[in-house]
């Protein structure tokens, strides 16, 4: 057992922390109160730093790294509340593209690595509690083609994406793992209609409607009706990244709250001297460390292919939801009125952590999945 970063991982962490020190997005969160175009300059910087290449094999032009390196990078980005759509395009998008056919890979991965391709995973649906197997949107077979009809909701980065990875049901009922298929769909294809929206955490997504959208066989990822296993593995890598990012954000919430409690004076002393607040900040610390532990557990078990890796991922997302709720709520309460303002960074971190619980199944959903994964 060894929890030390390798030299390579340490370099990645250092470079990410340097970037965040110079480029925190907190000010941007404060200013952006409407839909914004992609920050192309930052994305190009990500490409130049080699970050877009992290999870791709060297044969595909990547750095041949994996979830551990993604974790190191994302934790730093979370500290700066960096809103670049790394998880949507590189972790989820890249994860699916790595599973795609050789022709699809050749067509997409080089562009992604250059920073010229944005991807989004269209998975969630309105009025359906998210789990992959609860997907209902229909994909009907018409000869060798598939026709998509229906609506995907809250597709993160869906507004900017050039390419959509669509999870749809080719046979069976919601609840069945069998019968799900994955399709690569040009975001500007005929019949695809996108309604862009902001999300609570200062990022953007889209409602995406599919109206008789024809998809060729060549655009499918994996086997027909056999998309579940691929979707699960890629989603779990996405959840690992999302959690790593959030651990970075949670650590900032904790630190800023502790620092504030040392300077804020009431009743003739810093409020951090009050035992009632000390105990609560100690609990925030414990909650954060427990989340970090589960992040390591889930990431290492995934990387090493342990049988209970999926269960650990569910545990991690559940813990992230619960610890995130607690830490965010206490951070506001201990900051008092200031914590409720758009002006202070705290509120923006709170909104990110709150939004993250709502994405791809909240704490309750993942606890249930954990119970069922035995």
């Amino acid at each position, binding site marked *: 057992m060894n929890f030390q970063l390798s030299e390579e991982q340490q370099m990645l962490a250092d470079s990410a922390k340097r970037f965040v020190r110079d480029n925190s997005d907190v000010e941007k969160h404060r200013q952006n109160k409407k839909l914004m175009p992609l920050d192309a300059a930052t994305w190009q910087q990500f490409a130049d730093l080699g970050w877009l290449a992290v999870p791709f094999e060297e044969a595909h032009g990547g750095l041949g790294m994996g979830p551990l390196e993604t974790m190191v990078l994302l934790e730093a980005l979370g500290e700066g509340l960096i809103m670049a759509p790394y998880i949507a395009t590189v972790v989820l998008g890249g994860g699916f593209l790595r599973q795609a056919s050789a022709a699809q890979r050749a067509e997409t991965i080089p562009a992604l690595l250059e920073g010229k391709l944005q991807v989004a995973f269209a998975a*969630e649906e*309105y009025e359906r509690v998210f789990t992959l197997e*609860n997907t209902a949107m229909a994909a009907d077979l018409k000869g060798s083609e598939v026709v998509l009809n229906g609506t995907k909701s809250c597709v993160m980065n869906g507004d900017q994406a050039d390419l959509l990875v669509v999870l749809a049901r080719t046979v069976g009922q919601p609840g069945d793992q069998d019968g799900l298929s994955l399709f690569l769909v040009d975001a500007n294809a005929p019949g695809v209609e996108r309604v862009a929206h902001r*999300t609570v955490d200062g990022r953007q997504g889209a409602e995406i409607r599919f109206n008789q959208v024809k998809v060729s066989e060549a655009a499918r990822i994996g086997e027909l009706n056999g998309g579940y296993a691929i979707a699960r593995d890629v989603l779990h890598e996405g959840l690992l990244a999302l959690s790593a990012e959030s651990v970075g954000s949670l650590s900032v919430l904790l630190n800023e709250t502790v620092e504030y409690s040392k300077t804020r004076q009431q009743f003739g002393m810093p409020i951090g001297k009050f035992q009632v607040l000390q105990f609560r900040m100690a609990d925030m610390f414990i909650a954060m460390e427990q989340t970090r532990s589960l992040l390591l557990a889930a990431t290492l078990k995934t990387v090493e292919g342990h049988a209970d890796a999926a269960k650990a991922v569910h545990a991690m997302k559940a813990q992230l939801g619960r610890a995130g709720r607690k830490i965010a709520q206490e951070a506001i309460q201990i900051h*008092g009125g200031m914590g409720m303002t758009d002006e202070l960074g705290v509120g923006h971190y709170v*909104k990110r952590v709150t939004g993250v619980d*709502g994405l791809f199944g909240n704490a309750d959903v993942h606890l249930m999945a954990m119970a069922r994964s035995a």
Partner: protein
Amino acid sequence: MDLRVPEQEKAFRDEVRTFLEESLTPEIREAGRMVTSVFAPVKEAMAWQRILNDKGWAAPQWPKEFGGTGWSVTQRAIFAEELVRAETPPLVPMGLHMCGPCLIGCGTEEQQKEYLPKILSGEHFWCQGYSEPGSGSDLASLKTFAEKDGDDYILNGTKIWTTYAHYANKMFALVRTNRDDKPQQGITFLLLDMDLPGITIEPIVGLDEVPEQCQVFFDNVRVPQKNRVGEENDGWTVAKYLLTFERGGQEYAPGLNVMLEKIRLMAEKQQTAFGPLTKDPVWQHKFAALEADVLALEFTEMRIKSALSAGKDPGALSSMSKILGTELLQNVTELRIETLGSQSVIWQPQALVPGQEQPVIGPEYALTAMPHYLNSRACSIYGGSNEVQRGIIAKAVLGL
């Protein structure tokens, strides 16, 4: 002891329902549905207050001689319940629920005559100048100073978290008139006009992107001494009297019951792989726990009202209801975002402005969930933070 409702009160409920049915305009109803705070959109809330005032129902809790209704405690409870059931926008409380009762209890006859009718009519829009940047939970440490000069005071300092100061034309404020005594003993309660020279108002944008709060600056602002309520340096007594109304006068349970019912309807529409979310044991458990808490609070609030109507000071009970009401509101808004999942992550505050023709993205019932969740985090901070309230209970009730 019994829970029977006399016949005449059933008739009263019908009368209220009929009135609401007939007098609520579509605009006011829309504003009521879009509420994401204890403070409703101002224009519609004031329009609603004018309608209620024309009927003589703007301030049922006031004594009849000052414009109240003379209703029984049960009737007032029925009225409050029907207002939330019809999803009317809550009235702006600073005049009707705070300054008004305070003037009735502590003001001179002249002040009562001058201000109370205009509070009822909405001509005067009040804001509350209590907290300061350095004085939140420790309110008595406030520093805004009022220096005597002839018949006036000259004010210098700043107030913060002044809800709706940017809409207000009047403020009631706590100011320091004596720096030498114990902090509580050098405070005076003043009424002032918001358009006085030397006042600057800076709105503060909240997490929901709404400028609900403000900071107000006083630079040599001249306020007549006759605008003082109570004696000089005795403002803390007046403030404590008012805080009892701010904390104890509010009823949370009726609104929480309405919210819970709406959450249940939302949950019915959310499909899991095993049926609607309402059949999910985890969701059922969470929902039932909140229902139990709210039922308990409903009766706690009734006990407080019953004590009030018997002329007893609810005292620390009002601290208890503030803690329970605000924290249950927070828990209910939390269950709502959990029920909605990613649908609550979609952020469209512009669609919450009444009268906007903005098409809603996603289910319309999800629109208010996240802004309300975020806004409600303030409830355990303002009006005396819940830590302060727990301190009051520990000291005043438990004798610790």
